[in-house]
């Protein structure tokens, strides 16, 4: 009994002062993901990695925009998004107090303008993403002029790129290329396309 009292005395007060004082947390604590649209280029890597479907990306072809959004209600604070984001636009903070009065306050989103495909005109890639790729190429030592020349390639949608591939292959093989019926209105590919990788 005396021993027990000694333990209790030694332990002192174990109750934390929280919420009247901040709760100490570990340096690597995984709290609420904080997102900065300024750094985001709408590449979508995080939305693919998120196991809980808390992140989503929606494209509005009429408006020519792409909207990134997070629903904190689904987030499991795993930090997969932070791990895959190439620009550090999303990072887990120390904040664990997520209670809100209104469910809508658990959503956050950002909308990005899309560049239209140089070939068929369908909006498909965020302008920022193309800029990012060009910067990356420059950073890797490509002269800016050469990097800028590739812009056309990156601004061509995958469908048109595939068609161009087929086109080029058939031409090289000396065959006549018949465009499939459903193909987008044929526009001449920009000159730099021919030299793109």
């Amino acid at each position: 009994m005396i021993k027990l009292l000694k333990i209790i005395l030694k332990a002192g007060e174990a109750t934390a002062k929280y919420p009247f004082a901040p709760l100490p947390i570990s340096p690597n604590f995984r709290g609420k993901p904080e997102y900065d649209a300024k750094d985001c280029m709408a590449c979508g890597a995080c939305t693919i990695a998120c196991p809980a479907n808390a992140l989503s990306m929606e494209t509005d072809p009429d408006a020519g925009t792409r909207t990134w959004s997070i629903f904190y209600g689904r987030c499991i604070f795993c930090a997969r998004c932070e791990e895959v984001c190439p620009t550090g636009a999303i990072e887990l903070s120390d904040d664990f107090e997520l209670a809100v009065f209104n469910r809508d306050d658990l959503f956050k989103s950002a909308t990005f303008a899309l560049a239209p495909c140089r070939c068929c005109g369908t909006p498909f890639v965020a302008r920022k993403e193309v800029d990012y790729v060009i910067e990356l190429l420059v950073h890797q030592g490509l002269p800016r002029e050469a990097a800028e020349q590739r812009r056309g390639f990156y601004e061509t949608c995958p469908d048109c790129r595939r068609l161009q591939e087929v086109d080029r292959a058939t031409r090289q093989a000396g065959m006549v290329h018949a465009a499939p019926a459903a193909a987008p209105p044929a526009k001449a590919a920009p000159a730099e396309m021919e030299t793109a990788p």
Partner: protein
Amino acid sequence: MLAPTDTKVGKTYIDALRLKFPDVVLEESWQADNQATITVDPGSLPAVVEELHYGQGGWLSVVVANDERPLSGHYAVYYVLSMEGVEKSWVVVRAVVDPETLEFPSVTPKVPAAVWGEREARDMFGLRPVGLPDERRLVLPDDWPDDLYPLRKDAMDYRMRPQPTTDTETYKFINEARGETTVVPLGPLHITSDEPGHFRLFVDGETIVDADYRLFYVHRGMEKLAETRMGYDEVTFLADRICGICGFTHSVAYANSVENALGIVVPPRAGAIRSILLEVERLHSHLLNIGLACHFVGFDTGFMQFFRVREKAMTMAELLTGARKTYALNLIGGVRRDILKDERSRTLTLIAELRREVQELVDMLLATPNMRQRTEGVGRLETSIARDYSTVGPVVRGSGHRRDVRVLHPFAGYKGAPLPVHVMEGCDVLSRVLIRTREVFDSLALVEYFLDTMPEGPLLLEGFTFKPHRFALGYTEAPRGEDVHWTMLGDNQKLYRWRCRAATYANWPPLRYMLRGNTVSDAPLIVASIDPCYSCTDRVTVVDVRKQKSMIIPYKDMERYCRERTGSPLK
């Protein structure tokens, strides 16, 4: 198949089977060097499982049903046995089930441990184990439509919520008592269990003559969710959430099953980190259970002190993973985070503190006269029944069996780790509590061991190829015993089938034997001793069948009665 012949551990079991039952084994395949699956003639299924279980030192871990019609035109059932004779390995017995008759012979009459698995196969797939003594639903509620089998591939979307078919409860509780008894239902939420469960105690005076119970009120449909909505590499995060106490161990078991299926060897450093975190998880889980044991014998100060000290284990988890619970550290092929120098030294400090403080508390708990009085000889699980039901964890070790997956089938970083297995012969609540206290110190020593011997190298193996329709087992020793996951990969980076069996699933069925012959006031303590996660709950209903009268006892009274044992609320 995968493994070269000379490394096939457990081949002797299959050879012996072939000798004893010629022409019964139709097919043999190897998923890993210690994992074999044999397809047997369905008519011989019970005899084969019985022979492996009782004849060759096997323990039936889990029964997996699978809708393989899209693959081969029929259903299949898999009986997973952990072979613990001379060779330690896994033998899975598979039998195909005709999609028209849906029938296969029940194994339960020969090996009681199959009972829940076969009941679940009935519920989820509509398969009919012929001769199954207990044909009540296990998982599905009474108001679920009769012909809707959730895990069949063509049955339903995972979001579908069918209209309830009835308003009345039709579940029959089984009472094997001979004489007249009074019924004491505990529920709708069990008074010590986190999972809502409905218990009926059939009592004569204050003595429990028999008991029956119903669980799965909060079945979350995780297997269905994983199979339909998630990618195979995302399921580690879902598995983290199977249990609010020991989730990481499920995540490791799941990751293991996929890694085994794909032949991935996890880098040694990742294995060591997994082991460290598994022991941290065991620490906080065991300290919680010991704390609650104090509470239920009326030693509340002990309860408070254990919980205070347990907080250090939670801090350790937060330090090492970034979260107190749901560590989210597993990926297929390894882990996501390293343990750095500073984290290592802070963990070692916490370990030293824990060792000292827990020792003081344990000494005091064992010196409390109430403790021994209330737990010795109470809630006996006879050695033979523990065997029949293939029980696991501190429960089976408290009934004289040397079973610990970490030693039997080393996984993660456990191979070669110094790890004593504590076995006691008392078969009672006291044995289970004592085993847990000893295992706390083992876990402390193991964390130190792994931190000291952690191999260098990568944390994650990348660049493996996903191969559809491979399957394998993954297993871990959770704080409550062995967790077993059986996973079959599917198309499109998804799972075809995921069966996860939590440790307590194996310990529930024999609980009725532990309750029999004890007094009502010991019931919460006994249930607590299998450590099925706790919560407080609202109330207990008591029905006196003789007087056709029922009364509701507030939870507080029942709990108080359990602790003080005076002023029975039944009077």
